[in-house]
């Protein structure tokens, strides 16, 4: 385990290109045992470091719209998997499904695990956010 602990961001300089910057200790903010899967309209994409943010409007149990914010890995994580900003932005205004670990504060936010785009393409944030 400690060797894994050794693989930390400050010593990752040799991998500066495309390094996966971890802005937060995700477990401090999100509960990995509390998962949520939501389907709704992708309304916003913020494709920047240290982590991307996707906003989804969903109707949960009625007509009232709930706005959910999902935090994902940094852009470099997706770039290494041949997923670019344009791939996600093309889903704006369309229906997507997101699976996430819920925020500990109970807010409508989560740590993105998997997103299914309108064309059926599955975008995984694993292993970073598994």
């Amino acid at each position, binding site marked *: 385990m400690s060797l894994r*602990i050794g693989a930390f961001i400050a010593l990752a300089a*040799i991998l500066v290109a495309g390094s996966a*910057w*971890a802005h937060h200790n995700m477990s401090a903010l999100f509960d990995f045992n509390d998962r949520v899967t939501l389907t709704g309209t992708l309304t916003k994409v913020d494709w920047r470091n240290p982590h991307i943010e996707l906003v989804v409007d969903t109707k949960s149990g009625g007509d009232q719209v709930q706005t959910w914010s999902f935090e994902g890995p940094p852009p470099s994580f997706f770039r290494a998997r041949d997923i670019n900003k344009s791939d996600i932005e093309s889903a704006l205004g369309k229906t997507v499904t997101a699976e996430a670990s819920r925020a500990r504060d109970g807010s409508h936010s989560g740590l993105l695990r998997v997103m299914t785009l309108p064309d059926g393409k599955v975008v995984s944030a694993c292993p970073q956010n598994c």
Partner: protein
Amino acid sequence: MKNSYRISITTAAVVFAALLPAAVPGEAQLPRDPAERAKVIAQIFEANARQLTLFDRQGKVVSVIGPRDLYNQPVQSPDRKRVAVIKPDLDKETNDLWVLDVATGKGTQITFSQSRESASAPAWSPDGSQVAYVALRGGRFGLYRKASDGDGPEELLYQSPGAPMTLTDWSMDGRFLSYFSTDLSGGALYVLPLDAAGERKPIEVFKSPSQVQGPRFSADSRFISYVSNQSGRNEVYVRPFDPAASANAAPAAGPWQISDQGGQGMAFWRRDGKELYYLAADRGVMAVDVGTAPAFQFGKPKLLFRPPEAALTGVAPGTASISRDGARVVIAVHPPQLRQNTAFDRQEKVVSTAGQPGFYLQPGLSPDGKRVVVMRNDPQTANQDIWTIDLATGKGTPVTNDTPPENAPIWSPDGTQVAYVSTRGNYAGIYRKAWDGTGDEELLFRYTPGAGMVLTDWSPDGKFLTFYTGVLLVVPLRADEKPLDRKAMEWLREDYDVTQGRFSPDGRFLAFLSNEADADKPQVSVRPFDASKPEAPGPGPAVQVSKNGALGMIFWRQDGKEMYFLTRDWEVMAVDVTTTPTFQAGTPKLLFKLPGPLPGNPAQWKNVSPDGQRFIFAMPATGASVR
């Protein structure tokens, strides 16, 4: 497993052990360009490859097992003839389980993970015929087992509903697996019954707001040892295990604290149930007489041996284990890490050395060029502190001397203080203290919970700090603002990575590394910095300074007419620059090339003398002894 990464990231630069990171799927992306990728993989291997080494109870080397490789988590089979170990495939970005024959070193690959999946945390079945492990498959963590000769398919034993987990033991009666899950909200120890009918359901043995980890069964499976930081530091404890007890029930007795001077973990029970072993805080391998019939009893810990000092800082619960008979300790011994702070001139000639060899990282020169600030790991206490060393006399002075690890030291502009990063609780903060360690530590800035940061500079006027997270941030140090009220401004936040901000001597520019032009090739760039508008770069495009990529070590000469940086081939480069009226850069020229990768984070190094005549590095000190 993953939680360990997450915890570690908040304690950025905490760990001294790794020279350069072993690639971890999802944590550090390799360049995609094949040549660059191969180069980086070779460097990671060279800096991290470990030699599996068997020691007896007195610390004498019995044998080595196979060639060096990127081994992690070695566990000896019950008969001591084989070792299960985790090994990454850097190119595929996987981790897999291997079993090595102790006598021949021959390895058998047991698991075959898909790209960016992994296996980890092996535990042998009591008869040695199987190995259990944690695997990431299809985006889910699960407990699996497979024949230890690699035959047959792997069997899913239990799939985690969410949180990652770390397997640590298979009970000697074969009935249970033990594992843990821990994060900043605390941790829990679990047992998975293997003989239950139907769907397997884990037993939550113990949940704690503290970090708890490493559960292992006593020989009779009636007790569990584990590590907890409930006292403020890691210690080894034992508590009863009753599979029928409810999760929140108070233990029938205990818990008992076994270690008395800190215990990192690696708590293994001997097969006859009469001895318990663990790794002490100072990395000594300890033994404790124990008994479990009828009640738990234990004696005073005694030192078996301390690993060789050159290998000390790499010894940790994840890199060593003890055999079931207590006769052998296997340690994945890393390359030598003793370092000598060494000053070079512009022609690569060694000008001087600073102090005695030690476990140093990231030397930084004071503004007057007379002292060095370093991260120093104490092999006796395992503490990582900030020290300053007088270049003329070699005298070392602790700036910090405490348990929380400190990192990323930066001199104040006037050379009277040192700023550094330390994580206390859930918060990483920037602190400062007098260079000679006198006086109290002062908190300058505290970041958001759980967020890591790498401090890289303090502006010449003393009014700003800069750090990075992939975003380049600036912290104004207004005197009328309380530390907890200070906010970091996202000076440059883009979809590309921006790191290592360095202020020009006149404070009008910030140099930084970014991979805007080529994701695989960060370059040194410069943009205007306006102290009256520190929330964003001043007008005008970035000026690229490097031509063929850079690794870090950005430094401005005091007169603002020359800059320095390090390439990915470990070349020290110099560039003529002007800052008036606008910033312009000439063609980089090679000063000298370092012999190979050096430990630490070059994006944090500030190791050039103000006149650009001296360059100090923590060079290998093979053969030397620690002071």
